[in-house]
């Protein structure tokens, strides 16, 4: 090759890749008018690309699809549960999870008997000896309030949910709860509550 200019080689590549700018194309054209080797190089590559693109069409032989289908492994004979798991992986995971959760939460129902209050509010009165929480009259408690193994007297206002686990809720006439209020006495309710808080992350600890 008589032309040693790398620059024009790059321009030829760019032209063939369709990445050349109009200015570069003009420059390349001007150069090729006087440089035979670049002109030859460019046209030879162009011809090869054209030939490849026009290459005689090749189609799959007859019965191709049929033969592929014959080669496929037999549908695996899966037992029902396995098939079920395959088809509904999310449901299966949820079911397994529920069973495990149920077990551990059940254990919690039987062993957790300590009085506990979960609340971000400072204006509640907590009587640990009597296992009682009071929302004083005229006070507003912001956020959710959870009482475990104790009772709650709502004389003021709670802006949020109130949950009483293994306890009673007493509402004074002036008492007010803006969110949901719930008493949990049964193990089933307890499990449901735990699952719900687990998934929604609502429980404050």
């Amino acid at each position, binding site marked *: 090759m008589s032309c040693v200019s790398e620059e024009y080689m790059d321009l030829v*590549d760019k032209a*063939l*890749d369709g990445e050349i700018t109009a200015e570069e194309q003009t420059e390349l054209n001007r150069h090729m008018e006087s440089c035979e080797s670049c002109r030859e*190089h460019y046209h*030879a*590559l162009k011809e*090869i*690309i054209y*030939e*490849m*693109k*026009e*290459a*005689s*069409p*090749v*189609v*799959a*032989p007859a019965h*191709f*699809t049929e*033969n*592929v*289908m014959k*080669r*496929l*492994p037999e*549908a695996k004979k899966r037992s029902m549960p396995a098939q079920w798991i395959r*088809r509904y992986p999310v449901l299966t995971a949820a079911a397994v999870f529920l069973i495990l959760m149920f077990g551990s939460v059940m254990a919690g129902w039987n062993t957790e008997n300590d009085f506990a209050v979960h609340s971000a509010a400072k204006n509640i009165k907590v009587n640990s000896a009597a296992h009682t929480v009071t929302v004083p009259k005229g006070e507003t408690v912001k956020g959710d309030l959870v009482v475990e193994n104790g009772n709650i007297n709502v004389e003021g206002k709670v802006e949020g949910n109130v949950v009483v686990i293994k306890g009673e809720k007493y509402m004074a006439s002036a008492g007010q709860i803006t969110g949901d209020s719930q008493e949990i006495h049964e193990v089933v309710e307890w499990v449901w509550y735990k699952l719900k808080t687990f998934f929604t992350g609502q429980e404050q600890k």
Partner: protein
Amino acid sequence: MDSLINSLVTQVKSGNREAFEGLVEIYKDKIYRLCYRMVGDRHEAEDLAQEAFVRAFVNIDKYSGSYKFSTWLYRIATNLCIDRLRKRKPDYSMDAEIPGTEGATLYSQVADADPLPEDEVEEKEKRDQLQQEIMKLPEKYRTAILLKYIEDMSLEEISSVMDLPVPTVKTRIHRGREALKKAYKKVAKSR
């Protein structure tokens, strides 16, 4: 088209074999053509293309849908072809001459299929010659060249089929066509 493919893939995933038949019908020519251009032998190409589909079926759960199904299929097929070519290597080097007999039967078979007018015969010879030159390319250049010019893929698609960065793909295409040009020129001059 894409939504049809996706729906077929979903059906195959849930165990519908007939849906897979649909996918084979859609892609058989492309995959067979790629295999043929990669290995240069019709029987081997048929076997490889079928195997590619079988593997796709068996591993369908591994296809995540984060790129096109065809990209995944091409990847399986090119890998199978490259494996086959590597296994062949002990018999003869890729850089050595392709055994003349094999090429001759291959191309005479094609030519026998339907007689062509003279100028078309000449054109055909040129193309067959080109296929033989493609066959002589090292497989890494060959794959890139075929995907680009025979399968008409974008650099991005080729990059995800070959699992290589775009600039590497580009270099391989440049080097591949450069090598083809040199070989082709020799042939043209010898005539």
